[in-house]
C-alpha cells in the first residue's frame, strides 16, 4: 500500500464522495427550504465535474490506493483508483454534471416533499456509484453496491403515492437483491485461498488467489448473474422497463446512463482483474446473452408507445451491444489475440461512454417533453419541434448519435464493434468461426433497428402535427435544463469528431484490462484500428467536406434561384382537410416490427367497435419472459409457502415439540 497523501487522485475522489454525502446530509435539516434544496443540484454538478477531472488524472497517472478507517471496527475501507476506475469515474462525472445541471431546472416545479426526498437521495446515489468504482475490498464494494441500489430505489419511488411506481420500485429492489446475493456468493468463491481474516476480502488478496477452473467459472457465473441483473441482461431485464419510466427523468437518466455501466465495470473488474485466468466459453456465453439482450431490447423498443419505456428498452439494447463486445473481448483475450481484445474493449468502453451521454440526453429531454405536455404517451404528442426548438434540436443530436449516424459518437463505437467482429475469422475455435458471421449480421440488424426506433421516437414526438390541442401551450425548457442538455449534446459531438483523441485517452484503461492498447494506424485525424488498409474513418474531414458541400449548395440555391420561386398552395393528395389524426401513429410505426417478430412477444390488441364515433386502436406488447420464467417462479414460491404454512397450528405445544424434536435429532447427529 502506498502512503496516504493529499495529492493522490484517490484521495481527491474521496473528497468528492464526501462532498456528495455532505450535500445529502445537509438536505435533511433543510428539507423545508426549497431554495436551499435546489442549490444542492448545481453543487452536485460541480462535484461531478471534479470527479470527472480526477477520473482523467486516474487514467493518466499510476494507480493509487488508500485505506480509510471508517465502517466496522477492524474493517477499514480500502480504496484504489486505477485506470479502469478512472475511465468509469470520467463517465460518471460527465453524465452527472449534465444531468445535475438539468435537474436544477427540472426539479424546481416539484412539490416540496418530493423535492426533499430527491435532494437527499440524489447526491447519495452519486456518492454510492463513485464508491463502487473506488472500492478495493469486497466489504466496501458490497456496501457501496447496496447503497447504490437503495438510494436509487428511493429515487425511483420518490412519487410513492402512485401505485404503479411503488410496484416498479418493489420489482427493482427485488431484482437488485437477487443480484446482490449472487455478488456475495461470487466474492465468497473468490476469497480464501490461504488468506484468512479481514485481509481475505481485499481485492489485492483475491488477485493473488489461485482458483481451480471450476471455482473460477463459478465465480464468473455468479458475477454474471449479479452484474447482469443490474445491467439488465435478458432474462434479468424485467425491472428496467418498469423502473425507468417510474423514476423522475433526471433519475432515469442517471440510472440508465451511468448506473448500468457500474455493472459493466463490476464484470470487467471481476472477469479481467480479480480472476487471473479466463475460459473461452465465458466469452461465448456473454456474447450470446449480449446478442439476445440487444435483439430483444431493440424489438421491444420498436413497439413501445410510451416514450420513457421506449428509451428503457433501448437501454437494454445498448447494454446488449456492450456485453456482446465484452464477450468478444474475452474470447480474443483467451486466444491470446490481445490486439483484437484491445479493439473489442475499446469499442465496449467507447460505447459505454457514448451511451452514458446520449441516453442521459434523451432521458432528460424526454423529461422536458413530459413537463411541457404532461404525457408520456406518444399518442398525445407530436409537432413539438416548433414549440420547443432548443429541446428539439438538442434531442435531434442525441437521436442521431444513438442511431449510429456519422459524424456523431454512436457511429464510432458501433463501427469499432463491427470492426472487431470482422476480425473474428482468425479464431481457433472452428464452430465459433462458423457461428460468428450470424452474430455479426445480428449486430448489424440491431444497429439498423435502433435507427428505426429513433426515427419513430423523434418523428412522432417532435415532427408532424400536435396530436393533442393542449400541446399548443407547450413551453420550452428553462435555462438550466437547456444548459444540461447542451453539455451532454456537445459531448456527443466532440466524442464523435475526435475519436482518435478519445481512444488515446481511454487507452490506459484498455491497456490495464487487455494488456495492450488499440493501435491506431491513422494518426490523430483518422481512426484506423489495426490496419489503415482495411478500414479507416476520418470524421473531421468528413464533417468539413459535408459542411462545405452544404454551404455550396445553399449558396447556389440562394443566389442562382433567388426570386424565381413561385408560391402556391400545396397539393393535398385529394384530402380537403388534413388533421393530426392522419399522421403515422406510434403503434402504426411499430406495427411491421410487431408483425415480423410476433413470436417474441404476446400482443394484447384493442380493436375499435364498428359503431365507435372516435375509433381507437391500441396494442400492448407483453414480455414473454414474464410467462416463461417469472410467473412460474411466483407460483412455485406461493405453493411452497402454503405447504410450509401447514406447520403452523397456533399451538405453543406444537412449536415446542418442533424445537424438541430438532434438538433430539441434532443431539443424535452430534453423537
Amino acid at each position, binding site marked *: 500500500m502506498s502512503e496516504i497523501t493529499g495529492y493522490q487522485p484517490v484521495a481527491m475522489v474521496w473528497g468528492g464522495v464526501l462532498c456528495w454525502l455532505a450535500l445529502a446530509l445537509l438536505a435533511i435539516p433543510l428539507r423545508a427550504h426549497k431554495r436551499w434544496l435546489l442549490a444542492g443540484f448545481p453543487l452536485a454538478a460541480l462535484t461531478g465535474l471534479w470527479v470527472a477531472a480526477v477520473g482523467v488524472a486516474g487514467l493518466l497517472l499510476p494507480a493509487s490506493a488508500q485505506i480509510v478507517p471508517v465502517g466496522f471496527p477492524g474493517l477499514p475501507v480500502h480504496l484504489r483508483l486505477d485506470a479502469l476506475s478512472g475511465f468509469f469515474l470520467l463517465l460518471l462525472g460527465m453524465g452527472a454534471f449534465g444531468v445535475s445541471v438539468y435537474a436544477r431546472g427540472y426539479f424546481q416545479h416539484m412539490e416540496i416533499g418530493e423535492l426533499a426526498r430527491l435532494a437527499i437521495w440524489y447526491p447519495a446515489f452519486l456518492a454510492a456509484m463513485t464508491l463502487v468504482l473506488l472500492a478495493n475490498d469486497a466489504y466496501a464494494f458490497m456496501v457501496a453496491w447496496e447503497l447504490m441500489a437503495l438510494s436509487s430505489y428511493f429515487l425511483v419511488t420518490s412519487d410513492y403515492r402512485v401505485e404503479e411506481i411503488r410496484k416498479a420500485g418493489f420489482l427493482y429492489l427485488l431484482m437488485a437483491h437477487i443480484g446482490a446475493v449472487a455478488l456475495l456468493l461470487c466474492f465468497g468463491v473468490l476469497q480464501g485461498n490461504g488468506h484468512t481474516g479481514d485481509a481475505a476480502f481485499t481485492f489485492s488478496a483475491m488477485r493473488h488467489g489461485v482458483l481451480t477452473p471450476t471455482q473460477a467459472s463459478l465465480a464468473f457465473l455468479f458475477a454474471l448473474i449479479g452484474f447482469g441483473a443490474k445491467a439488465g441482461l435478458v432474462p434479468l431485464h424485467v425491472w428496467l422497463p418498469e423502473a425507468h419510466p417510474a423514476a423522475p427523468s433526471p433519475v432515469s437518466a442517471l440510472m440508465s446512463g451511468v448506473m448500468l455501466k457500474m455493472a459493466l465495470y463490476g464484470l470487467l473488474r471481476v472477469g479481467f482483474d480479480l480472476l487471473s485466468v479466463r475460459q473461452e466459453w465465458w466469452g461465448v456465453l456473454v456474447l450470446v446473452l449480449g446478442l439476445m439482450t440487444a435483439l430483444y431490447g431493440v424489438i421491444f423498443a420498436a413497439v413501445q408507445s410510451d416514450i420513457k419505456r421506449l428509451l428503457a428498452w433501448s437501454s437494454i439494447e445498448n447494454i446488449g451491444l456492450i456485453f456482446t463486445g465484452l464477450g468478444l473481448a474475452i474470447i480474443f483475450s483467451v486466444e491470446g489475440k490481445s490486439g483484437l481484445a484491445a479493439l473489442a474493449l475499446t469499442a465496449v468502453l467507447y460505447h459505454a461512454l457514448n451511451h452514458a451521454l446520449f441516453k442521459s440526453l434523451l432521458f432528460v429531454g424526454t423529461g422536458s417533453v413530459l413537463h411541457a405536455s404532461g404525457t408520456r404517451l406518444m399518442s398525445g404528442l407530436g409537432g413539438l419541434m416548433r414549440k420547443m426548438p432548443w429541446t428539439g434540436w438538442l434531442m435531434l443530436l442525441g437521436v442521431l448519435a444513438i442511431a449510429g449516424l456519422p459524424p456523431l459518437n454512436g457511429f464510432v463505437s458501433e463501427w469499432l464493434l463491427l470492426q472487431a467482429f470482422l476480425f473474428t475469422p482468425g479464431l481457433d475455435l472452428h464452430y465459433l468461426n462458423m457461428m460468428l458471421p450470424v452474430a455479426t449480421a445480428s449486430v448489424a440488424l440491431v444497429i439498423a433497428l435502433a435507427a428505426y426506433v429513433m426515427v419513430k421516437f423523434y418523428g412522432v414526438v417532435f415532427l408532424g402535427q400536435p396530436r393533442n390541442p393542449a400541446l399548443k401551450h407547450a413551453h420550452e425548457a428553462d435555462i438550466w435544463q437547456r444548459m444540461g442538455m447542451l453539455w451532454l449534446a456537445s459531448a456527443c459531438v466532440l466524442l464523435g469528431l475526435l475519436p482518435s483523441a478519445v481512444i488515446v485517452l481511454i487507452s490506459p484503461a484498455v491497456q490495464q484490462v487487455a494488456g495492450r492498447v488499440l493501435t491506431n494506424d491513422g494518426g490523430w485525424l483518422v481512426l484506423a484500428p489495426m490496419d489503415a488498409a482495411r478500414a479507416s474513418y476520418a470524421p473531421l474531414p468528413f464533417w468539413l467536406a459535408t459542411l462545405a458541400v452544404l454551404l455550396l449548395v445553399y449558396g447556389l440555391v440562394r443566389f442562382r434561384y433567388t426570386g424565381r420561386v413561385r408560391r402556391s398552395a400545396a397539393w393535398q393528395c385529394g384530402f380537403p382537410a388534413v388533421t393530426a389524426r392522419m399522421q403515422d401513429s406510434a403503434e402504426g410505426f411499430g406495427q411491421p416490427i410487431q408483425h415480423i417478430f410476433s413470436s417474441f412477444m404476446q400482443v394484447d390488441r384493442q380493436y375499435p367497435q364498428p359503431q365507435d364515433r372516435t375509433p381507437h386502436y391500441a396494442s400492448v406488447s407483453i414480455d414473454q419472459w414474464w410467462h416463461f420464467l417469472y410467473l412460474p417462479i411466483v407460483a412455485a414460491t406461493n405453493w411452497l409457502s402454503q405447504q410450509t404454512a401447514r406447520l403452523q397450528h397456533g399451538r405453543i405445544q406444537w412449536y*415446542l415439540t418442533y424445537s424438541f424434536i430438532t434438538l433430539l435429532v441434532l443431539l443424535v447427529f452430534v453423537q
Partner: protein
Amino acid sequence: MISTGASGMISGWYLQIVNLLAALLLLISFAMLAQRRVAGLISLFAWQGAALAVSTAIVAVFTAQWHLLYSVALTLLLKVMIIPWFFYRLVRKLGMSRDVEPLLNHSLTMLTGIVLVIFAFNLALPISQMAGTVMRSTLGIAMACVLLSFLMMITRTKALPQVIGFMAMENGIFFAATSATYGMPLVVELGVALDVLVGVFVLGIFFFQIRETFESMDLRQMEKRKEH
C-alpha cells in the same frame, strides 16, 4: 473412580455428595413432570435450585474454582428466593392454584421421561470422557434434566407451568456447564441471570394481560388468535 493419587481420599466423599445431589436433581425433575398442582411445582422448582446451588458450592470449594461461588449466590438469590416468591404471589393474585391438566396421559409422560433419561445418558457418555472436570459423570444427569424440563413444557397447557419448565431447563443447562467446564465465564453467567430475571417479570406482566384478554390462563384460548 474419578480421581486418583493424593487427592483420592478427599475427593471421594465430596463427589459422593455431588452425585447424590445430582440424583436429587433428576428426581425433582421427574417430580415436576408428575406434579399437578401449581404451588407444588413452584416449591419443587425452588428445591431444585437449592440442590443445584449446594452441589455447585461443594464443587467450588473442593476444586478451588472460586468464581463459581458468584454463580451459587446468584442461583440462591434468584432461583431459590426471588422467582419462587414472585410465582407464589402470582398464583395467589391470579387465583390459579387449581390442578393443571396435562396434555398427555400421566403414565405415558413418565415413560417418555425414562426414555429421554436413557437417551441423555447414552449421549453424555462420549462427551463426559472428553471433559476434564471431576464432575463429568453428572453430565448425563444434567442433560436429562434439560430434556425432562423441555418435555414438561410440551405437556402442560397453562402458561405458568411452561415458564417454570423453562426455568428448570435453565437450571439443567447451568448444571451441565458446571459438570463439563466448571461453569461458564462470569460475564455470561451474569447475563443469563439477568435475562432470566427480566424474562420472569415480563412474563408476569404478560400473565395479567393474558388473563385480562382471555379471562383464562389456558394457552389453548390463544389458538383462536392464529391467523387463517
